[in-house]
């Protein structure tokens, strides 16, 4: 805990938010009730592609407790429109087919809504949902992201010939020349398999329509309530100023609660129809079908290099599944958030990628922790390892020869991005030291002599986050801004309420933002209340995703802090009968230089400002400041991760032995919280490499449709991670901070994968599709041994 002598900034302050969670007082949406509340259940398609011939709701209407059964046509008739996609990538031919909240004539994935039932209890609503009789004409199905573009593939949307959603290109430098002059070219087909986010809290939406006032309140499990309100003003008949969206405590998101979902509008429609508050609580089985998935990305990648290991160029042709419809941000993920970061941490002179977005009969995809960047960094980091293997060089040495030199004021890469600051070699050296890399390689050589398959994987990543400059958001087709906001409000007693437009849901900003205020204004962390997640309380802001909360949100806080300090100086000068330029402020005290003991505390100033009995001329009452911050650039965290894995040649099982992560997210506000973010991120990324993967059968059934068949890591699966950091500030925001929410996930998938492939290298294996299940690894070993005989 902090003391008066310790700065709050940089201290591992225990979290303010914990008290309610450890005592069972969390305010999760499903814990909320409203007087007269009824429950909605959704009738979902059991078929991946079919025409709806008829919907018979008569039996369901007669079921106990049912107060209404509604179809998509009825929603459309009441003025409810299609769910909008908020990101239409320019310089592409993006097609945005209609996405009715409830399918009207065609269903396009298993889980597509076809009707809703409203009843007095959740159980009665679900019972009645089974009694809705839907008559389907089955249509052919395509689930594979590449096969979707075959000429004879079944067509999902008439607006999108060949199921093509878009073709987008990133191009920088002379790629043809780079490949023509290369000594070596390595090629690989890299699959970033479809993943299911699995936030521990499934989605919930509770709508209360107040007919007399024409006002709507929606409590919803969202990462960005202001965006939800903005989009609801487009697809419901309710105008934006009559909508209040509240995201109470949200039980994890990882990108899956970024989207504005059909169920948001369905509960609103239902509440208007039945005249009562309506709640929908997703079951976990529904969550697997109806909440967005991530990744599902295949790339044919080539890397060109000299025989000294200098990388000359990267070229890729990539297919990314959008699923059956476009979700809120889906098109931006496989394009802007992916292709632009393909240079990674390296000076690569030439980069070209063609990305094809396709529609398939699967659950829509959207952001999942990292969102586009894990796919890109996996491609780069895997190809660098293949170059090392081709040249018989240590993968660390190849990286050293290509890492961008340390810089603190911008570095442009071939894709056009200008990275903010970096010291990639510094992070690499620290990680190698922590890992004991040279000794580990010697031990590995010895193990190999004994016939053991021990592997070491290294990744030196850079990512792009802290989304971002609003001008760039507009230029890349994002349908909103990416600035953020803060209000610092001093109460008469000197206590502070900080209202922010971002919307954390587990990341801990209730504490770290209070630490910023404490550090800057000299009030204790306990005296600062951080308010977020309610559009009626907080200023407009763009929410929490893309590791933007601290990188952008803190900029707004600092703007408000600066105004508070300026006003404090004016009032203190008046109270102390001194000139403003003679007033200094430190540790919460305004004083004439050299006579701190006679100074006025910020609490004194807050009381004087709020009572306004004797303010200087021209100074308004109150001590409150509002600020908006539009960053001038993204931020670019980086680091080096190293893993050691051992494969059992008899069974293909993988022993996860060591993991070292050195991350640089700039100055750290709360080391405990940052380490927690890295640990969780590494676990999720490692899980992609080793365990997780969504599987559809050819008919479009989700085979991995529950926690019984989809392998979320358990405590036993993972080792303790060894964490280190370097601190390279950014000049993009006043505190120099970068984001850290996604670094672990972005870095760990290729780190773990490279380690396993390194273990299998003596057998000649260089590619196994993720997840690296024992069965797949064992099969690869068998085939390699057959080939070797």
């Amino acid at each position, binding site marked *: 805990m902090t003391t008066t002598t310790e700065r709050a900034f940089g201290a591992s302050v225990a979290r303010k938010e914990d008290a309610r*969670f450890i*005592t069972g007082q969390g305010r*999760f949406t499903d814990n909320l009730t409203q007087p007269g509340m009824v429950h909605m259940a959704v009738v979902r398609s059991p078929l991946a592609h079919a025409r709806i011939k008829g919907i018979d709701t008569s039996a369901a209407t007669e079921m106990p407790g049912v107060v209404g059964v509604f179809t998509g046509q009825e929603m459309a008739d009441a003025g409810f429109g299609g769910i909008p996609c908020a990101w239409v990538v320019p310089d592409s031919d993006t097609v945005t087919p209609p996405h009715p909240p409830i399918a009207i004539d065609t269903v396009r994935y298993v889980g597509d809504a076809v009707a809703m039932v409203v009843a007095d209890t959740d159980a009665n609503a679900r019972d009645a949902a089974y009694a809705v009789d839907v008559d389907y004409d089955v249509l052919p199905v395509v689930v594979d992201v590449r096969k979707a573009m075959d000429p004879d593939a079944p067509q999902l949307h008439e607006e999108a010939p060949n199921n093509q959603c878009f073709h987008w290109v990133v191009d920088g430098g002379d790629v043809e020349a780079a490949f023509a002059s290369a000594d070596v070219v390595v090629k690989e087909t890299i699959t970033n398999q479809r993943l299911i986010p699995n936030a*521990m809290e499934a989605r919930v939406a509770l709508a209360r329509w107040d007919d007399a006032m024409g006002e709507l309140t929606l409590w919803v499990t969202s990462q960005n309530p202001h965006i939800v309100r903005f989009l609801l003003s487009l697809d419901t008949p309710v105008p934006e100023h009559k909508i209040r969206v509240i995201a109470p405590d949200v039980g*994890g998101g990882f990108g899956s609660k970024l989207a504005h979902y059909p169920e948001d509008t369905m509960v609103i429609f239902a509440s208007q129809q039945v005249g009562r508050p309506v709640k929908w609580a997703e079951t976990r089985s529904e969550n697997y079908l109806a909440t967005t998935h991530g990744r599902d990305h295949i790339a044919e990648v080539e890397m060109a290099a000299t025989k000294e290991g200098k990388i000359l160029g990267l070229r890729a042709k990539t297919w990314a599944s959008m699923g059956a419809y476009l979700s809120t941000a889906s098109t931006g993920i496989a394009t802007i958030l992916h292709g632009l970061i393909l240079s990674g941490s390296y000076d690569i002179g030439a980069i070209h990628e063609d990305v094809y977005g396709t529609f398939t009969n699967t659950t829509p995809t959207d952001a999942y922790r990292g969102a586009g960047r894990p796919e890109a960094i996996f491609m780069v980091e895997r190809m660098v390892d293949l170059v090392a293997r081709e040249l018989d060089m240590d993968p660390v040495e190849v990286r050293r020869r290509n890492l961008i030199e340390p810089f603190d004021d911008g570095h442009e890469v071939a894709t056009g991005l200008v990275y903010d600051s970096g010291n990639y070699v510094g992070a690499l050296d620290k990680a190698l030291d922590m890992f004991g890399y040279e000794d580990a390689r010697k031990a590995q050589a010895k193990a190999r002599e004994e016939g053991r398959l021990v592997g070491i994987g290294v990744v030196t990543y850079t990512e792009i986050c802290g989304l971002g400059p609003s001008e760039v958001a507009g230029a890349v087709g994002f349908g909103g801004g990416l600035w953020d906001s803060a209000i610092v409000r001093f109460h008469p007693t000197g206590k502070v309420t900080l209202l922010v437009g971002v919307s954390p849901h587990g990341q801990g900003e209730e504490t770290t933002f209070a630490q910023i205020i404490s550090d800057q204004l000299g009030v204790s962390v306990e005296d600062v209340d951080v308010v977020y997640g309610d559009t009626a309380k907080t200023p407009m802001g763009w929410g929490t995703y893309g590791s933007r909360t601290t990188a952008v949100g803190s900029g707004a806080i600092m703007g408000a802090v600066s105004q508070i300090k300026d006003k404090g100086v004016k009032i203190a000068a008046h109270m102390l009968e001194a000139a403003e330029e003679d007033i200094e402020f430190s540790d919460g005290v305004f004083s004439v230089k050299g006579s701190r003991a006679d100074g006025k505390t910020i609490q004194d100033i807050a009381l004087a400002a709020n009572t306004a009995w004797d303010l200087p001329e021209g100074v308004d009452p109150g001590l409150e400041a509002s600020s908006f911050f539009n960053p001038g650039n993204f931020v670019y965290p980086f680091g080096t991760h190293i893993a050691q894995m051992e494969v059992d040649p008899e069974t293909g099982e993988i022993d996860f032995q060591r993991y070292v992560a050195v991350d640089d997210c700039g100055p750290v506000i709360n080391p405990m*919280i940052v380490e927690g973010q890295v640990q969780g991120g590494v676990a999720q990324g490692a899980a992609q490499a080793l365990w997780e993967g969504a599987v559809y059968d050819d008919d479009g059934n989700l085979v991995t449709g529950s926690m019984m068949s989809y392998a*979320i890591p358990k405590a036993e699966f993972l080792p303790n*991670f060894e964490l280190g950091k370097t601190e390279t500030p950014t000049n993009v925001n006043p505190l120099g901070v970068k984001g850290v929410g996604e670094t672990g996930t972005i870095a760990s998938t290729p780190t773990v994968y490279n380690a396993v492939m390194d273990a299998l290298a003596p057998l000649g294996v260089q590619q196994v599709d993720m997840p690296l299940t024992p069965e797949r690894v064992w099969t690869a070993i068998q085939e390699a041994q057959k080939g070797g005989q």
Partner: protein
Amino acid sequence: MNVSMTVNNTSYERDVEPRTLLVDFLRDDLGLTGTNIGCDTSQCGACTVHIDGAAVKSCTVLAAQADGASITTIEGLSINGELHPMQRAFTEKHGLQCGFCTPGMIMTAVKLVESYPEPTEEQIRHGLEGNLCRCTGYQNIVQAVDEGARLTEAHSPFESTPAEHQITLREAERRAWERSRT
């Protein structure tokens, strides 16, 4: 049907549908929403409570099966406002982020350290196999359980029937089954 049970030292009697799960009974009938529902296949463990001294996923038990039982939920873990040592350990070691799995995690951990008062890391990780967390990567949860074990004295004042701690889950299930027959 009519069920009665003691929850957090308070006696309750309610009329419920026979199909009512214990977790829904706790949340919807008693308003004890600290016990969360994270899945519908009994994998996630978010709904773990103590039934007659054993940690049990309350989605695997019908309210009717718990008739006559003594139940502790996360709301009943602290006594007179004083946190259970395991609750303190979770916040001190940053063993939670979004907080959704936390009540179930803590209820499991309390029983885990009763079985293993000085648990090894392996025992902790194995003991948590029925509880999923998506935020933390488990590292700080493992540390929290270790710390919680250290903070929990041999005879914790927080549950007054030490002998009950020793019963196995199977025994708790057997008792529930017996109760459901009478």
